[in-house]
C-alpha cells in the first residue's frame, strides 16, 4: 500500500495528508473539526457554480482558442492588458479555481505577466 501511495501525484498526497490532519483534528478537538467541515461545506456550495463556469470556459478555450489566437492577443499590448483587466474584474470565486484554466492558456502561449495580472485582479 505504501508503494502505491508513493506512486501517487503530489496533489493526491496533499489531499491524503489533509484528510489525515482532519482525522487528527477530529480526535483532538471535535469542535474545531465541526467548524472546519461547516466552513468547507459552505465554500463547496459557493464554488460549485464557479467550477461549472471554469469547465465551460476551458471547453470553449479547447474548442476555439489556438496558440495563434493567443499570439495575436499578445501582439497588441493595449488590447491584451485591457482584456486581462476586464476578465479579472468580471471573474468571480477563489483564485485557486482559475489555476487549471490559466495553466491551459499558458500552454497555448499566454504570458506569465498576463496570468499574474489576472490573479492580482481576481483576488480583490
Amino acid at each position, binding site marked *: 500500500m505504501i508503494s502505491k501511495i508513493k506512486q501517487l*501525484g*503530489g*496533489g*493526491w498526497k*496533499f*489531499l491524503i*495528508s*489533509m*484528510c489525515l*490532519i*482532519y482525522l487528527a*483534528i477530529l480526535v483532538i478537538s471535535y469542535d*474545531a473539526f465541526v*467548524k*472546519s*467541515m461547516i*466552513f*468547507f461545506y459552505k*465554500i*463547496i456550495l*459557493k*464554488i460549485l457554480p464557479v*467550477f461549472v463556469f*471554469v*469547465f465551460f470556459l*476551458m*471547453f470553449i*478555450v*479547447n*474548442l*476555439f*482558442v*489556438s496558440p495563434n489566437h493567443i499570439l495575436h492577443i499578445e501582439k497588441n499590448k493595449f488590447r491584451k492588458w485591457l482584456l486581462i483587466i476586464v476578465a479579472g474584474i468580471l471573474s468571480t470565486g*477563489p*483564485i*485557486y*479555481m482559475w*489555476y*487549471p484554466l*490559466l*495553466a*491551459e492558456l*499558458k500552454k497555448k502561449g499566454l504570458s*506569465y505577466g498576463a*496570468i*499574474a495580472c489576472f*490573479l*492580482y485582479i481576481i*483576488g*480583490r
Partner: protein
Amino acid sequence: MNTISVKQAALKAARSLWRSFPMILATILLVSLVNAVVPKSFYVKIFRKNALFDSFIGSSIGSISAGTPITSYILGGELLKQGISLIAVTAFLVSWVTVGIVQFPAESAILGKKFAFWRNLLSFILSIFTAVITVAILNLL
C-alpha cells in the same frame, strides 16, 4: 477554430480539471481548517499600533490567512476599531487577497514553482506600497 471535436474538447477540459481536483480540494480543506482554528482575536493581538511595523505585520498576517475577501473586510473593520492604523489594515486587506501561502502548493503545482514564488513575493512587497499610497491619497482628498 481548432481541429478538435466537441467531445474531445469536453474530455480535455474534464481531464485538466480532474488533474487539479485533488490539489484544489486539499486547498479548500486547508482554508477551512485555518479559518476554523485561528480565532478572530488573534488578528487584534498581533498588531503593535506602530504604522510602519504594523503594515509589515498586516501584510504578513494577510499572506498566511485564508478565507473570502468579505471576512477580511469584517476583520479590517474590527482592527480599525481597535486603533490599528489604516496603513496596516489596508496592507492586511490587499495581501489577504493577493498573496496566498495557503494556496501556494496548488499554485506552484499547477502554474509552476518559480511563477508562484515570485508572484507571491512581489504581491507581498507591493501590498505594503499599495497600502502607503492608498492612505496618502485618502489623506490628500
